[in-house]
């Protein structure tokens, strides 16, 4: 009982200190609530004054910053791989991708998900932070139905939702960036800070692009993206077999393809297949491959 009494005293004491400290904050908070629906300059200053949590990891990267990193990564991917311009196909891949994204763990990003087909014969799919997603013509040629493509797009959306791309940026770079950004009070950066930030930005894009195109993610991220891929496509209503069926096709691909694209940057298709099968078994979904979906897949990917 005595212990409980001491605890009560401690809690009451803590509460008192906290209340003293929080009055002005709550006032400012209500000011925000009572506003006209926009952040006014005084609201902004109030929040800036009262919020002291500092940034230290990839999870502190804001939505808008992720968008700019994603744009840069996408621009570098597109410098290496030309876009396959086919309006019918591009619209189909985008609509399919949006159908899956809507049922993902992160349906909204700063500027939304956008998909492009790359004019490359290698079997590859990539996702830049923020939701810029690429699939190659080579990959599309290997898919035989909509479930498979939906599963590949869902895997890439999984990388975006779990922020795997941002996690490939070196921690020291982020700490440097946060320091420079935090010191800047004015609206625009001065020349020195801008040049420091640009160098860090350049390094960060390099970290992500190298991971996407050369090194590949840590395999645990790929398995996670596979699991998320199955989960999201099943949530959208696709047959759960899409991913394992596609991986089965990859297992059978040999020869010169082996050192390129997904084969170079991903764990072996056989390893992934085993795990994907167990993910499908636990998904417990009964949806079947639907003829109407397979037909529109064939119609839209004709000649790819």
């Amino acid at each position, binding site marked *: 009982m005595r212990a409980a009494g001491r605890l009560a005293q401690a809690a009451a004491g803590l509460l008192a200190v906290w209340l003293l400290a929080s009055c002005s904050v709550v006032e400012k908070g209500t000011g925000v609530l009572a506003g006209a629906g926009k952040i006014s300059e005084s609201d902004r200053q109030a929040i800036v004054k009262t919020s002291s949590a500092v940034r230290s990891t990839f999870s502190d990267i804001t939505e808008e910053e992720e968008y700019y990193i994603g744009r840069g990564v996408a621009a570098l991917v597109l410098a290496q791989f030309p876009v396959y311009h086919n309006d019918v196909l591009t619209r189909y891949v985008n609509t399919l991708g949006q159908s899956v994204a809507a049922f993902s763990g992160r349906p909204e990003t700063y500027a939304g998900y956008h998909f492009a087909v790359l004019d490359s014969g290698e079997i590859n799919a990539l996702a830049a932070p923020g939701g810029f997603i690429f699939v190659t013509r080579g990959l599309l040629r290997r898919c035989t139905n909509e479930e498979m493509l939906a599963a590949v797009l869902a895997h890439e959306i999984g990388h975006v939702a779990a922020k795997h791309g941002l996690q490939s940026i070196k921690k020291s770079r982020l700490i440097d960036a946060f320091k420079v950004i935090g010191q800047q009070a004015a609206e625009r950066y001065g020349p020195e800070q801008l040049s420091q930030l*640009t160098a860090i*930005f350049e390094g960060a894009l390099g970290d992500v692009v190298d991971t996407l195109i050369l090194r590949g993610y840590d395999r645990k991220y790929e398995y996670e993206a596979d699991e998320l891929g199955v989960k999201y496509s099943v949530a959208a209503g696709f047959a759960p077999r899409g991913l394992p069926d596609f991986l089965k096709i990859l297992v059978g691909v040999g020869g010169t393809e082996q050192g390129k694209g997904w084969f170079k940057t991903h764990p072996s298709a056989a390893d992934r297949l085993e795990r994907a099968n167990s993910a499908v078994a636990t998904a417990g979904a009964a949806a079947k491959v639907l003829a109407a979906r397979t037909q529109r897949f064939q119609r839209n990917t004709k000649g790819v």
Partner: protein
Amino acid sequence: MKQRIPLIAALGLLALFATLALAETLIVKVQSTNLRKTPKFYGAVVQALKSGDKLEKVTSQPDGWIQVKTAGGAVGWIHTSAVDVQKFNLLAVGGGLKTQASASEVALAGKGFNKQVEESYRAKHKDANFAEVDRMLLLKVAAAQLEEFMKQGHLGDWRGAK
């Protein structure tokens, strides 16, 4: 047993104030989105929202959808991935030491890696293909098109349809 009452009261108050201090004000963190009539991505839109707009939480669902009220009084649904909960750090009141900015400050001020940094990067990297990136951004799938696609493919709400 008597001593339990102040303990419970203190903890209760603490919980109450924690809730109040972290008042459920949500800030839109994506560039643009919609306040929707129902908790889904297709169907009727109540009004357009943009980055920085403030919303008051009404209720939330385990699937990630939150019912909110705008400052103008409009009620609708938004997905949790589009908003940040505005938190106030109580320990910082009174001018505590602070040499860095928090994520919410940076987001509100549009600082960090932003357009200015991209422009500076682009000036040095003419090879980076930003033109194609901008082209990707132009393609938008309207809610009605998404709905039609899902209906036709027996997906989402139409799964298992005959």
